[in-house]
């Protein structure tokens, strides 16, 4: 993946339904004044020298190989940044409590729940979302396997299921069915497409 600098304020002028809806929200979300801002560098997160604790911080997050500079509140979750700031809406918000797995992303190659991760603590990590695994229009082998085996019904849990599978196959290229079930235990499918999901993982192991 190529590394580029990407200033998220310079967004594409292409108007989509989502950007149109978001436009209204943005104008009302005026930034609060008088809060302490500080820069959170990538190399270190040492901020004890600051006069008091951070209420706002500028962070650089590396998502799908691109660096994004953003201003966040400490309470902002990685999920919120991905969806609301970076428009990477492939990562889904389900339970928002670390129970359903639809917000799964890979942090340094390991699956985590982005709804229970603070953006401020993701500084310096390699963040990989569903948008980052394909090569342009060419789908990742795991995505192809899910398409081929119809490893979904409504598709809401698919980004999480696929990323959990990418992480599993990275560690274990030919998992047993029991290992597949364990590795995907943190990703619920409300449609109950589990048999096809597990079959997709087996097919993905062959396609890779």
């Amino acid at each position, binding site marked *: 993946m190529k590394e580029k600098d990407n200033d998220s304020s310079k967004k594409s002028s292409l108007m989509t339904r989502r950007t149109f809806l978001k436009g209204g929200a943005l104008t009302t979300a005026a930034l609060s004044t008088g809060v302490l801002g500080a820069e959170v560098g990538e190399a270190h997160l040492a901020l004890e020298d600051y006069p008091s*604790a951070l209420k706002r911080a500028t962070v650089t997050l590396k998502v799908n190989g691109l660096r994004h500079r953003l201003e966040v509140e400490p309470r902002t979750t990685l999920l919120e940044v991905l969806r609301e700031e970076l428009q990477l809406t492939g990562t889904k918000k389900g339970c928002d409590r670390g129970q359903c797995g639809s917000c799964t992303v890979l942090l340094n190659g390991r699956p985590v*729940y982005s709804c*229970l991760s603070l953006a401020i*603590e993701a500084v310096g990590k390699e963040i990989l979302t569903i948008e980052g695994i394909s090569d342009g229009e060419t789908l990742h082998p795991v995505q192809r396997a899910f398409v081929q085996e119809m490893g979904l019904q409504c598709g809401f849990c698919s980004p999480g299921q696929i990323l959990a599978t990418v992480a599993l196959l990275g560690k274990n290229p030919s998992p047993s069915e029991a290992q597949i079930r364990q590795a995907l*235990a943190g990703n619920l499918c409300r449609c109950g497409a589990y048999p096809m999901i597990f079959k997709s993982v087996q097919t993905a192991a062959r396609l890779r």
Partner: protein
Amino acid sequence: MKSFAYVPATSTKSAVALLGRARGKARVMAGGTDLLGEMKDNLISPEQIVGLKPAADLNYVKAEASGLRIGALTPLSELAEHKVVRERYPILVQAVEQIATPQLRNMGTVGGNLCQRPRCWYYRGASFPCLKKGGEICYAVNGENLYNAILEGGPCYIVHPSDLASPLQALGAKVKMAGPKGERTVPLEKFFVLPRVNAKKENILGQEEILTEIQVPAVPATMRGTYVKFKERGSWDFGLVSAAALLDIRDGICREARIVLGAVAPVPYRAARAEEVLKGKRVDERLAAQVAEVAVMAARPMSQNAYKVRLAQAAVKRTVLSLA
């Protein structure tokens, strides 16, 4: 989630200093999987979070001749992947692999697993001012107590939710804490407190103290252990009942035994009398059944959780027989 200020701690020392400076207004955050859940559910709204993740000196697993030293910030998944842990402490690997989901094991830490708050739904429900939140009553007593304590309960009837605590206690682990007055190390069983001592807390950690290290002594080669966890769902859940057993059986005779039950009491429950029944005897099905019965002899089930008594007996019997 309400707004809060964030301060990253760069070391154990800085974490303690930051907590001192915050004068009770800060909470420490390790993996955050429990704390952020509590904050999202409006159970707590700290003004400040002291982030422990940036503290580089708290994430390690050191295997030494005297045993293991585990930094409190070590992610659960990394503990279970550690070569020496897999070779010499399979009971810990068994326990970790049954904690939550792969994602939560990547995020959650060893120290956080020991310090997590209870799952009692009255505690987790913001609208119930229960004893744990400084209220007057335990709603489980006359309420829905399916998952509550059958042993050592009262006045609050939570069960300790940690899967790691019972095997660690069976292994004779100690925990090290750091605070404004320096460091202290106590056996794990002295770390946890019963509700009759303090209903608001599950352990002895002071407001300005953090858990820094878990020390696990070396285990004699003849001592083998296993962990059994019963849960309502096959995939993942908090335990209904769990049992950690560490037995030294030679020529069919049990020389040494340690049995600690999980999810039955507000703290990990050491079945000391059951251990005595085992010692010096030939381990067979009949003895295992007797040991199981003695293990929960003191149980006082609530209106909905008598099933836990038989479940605990089954867990004890199963662990003992699997090691025989």
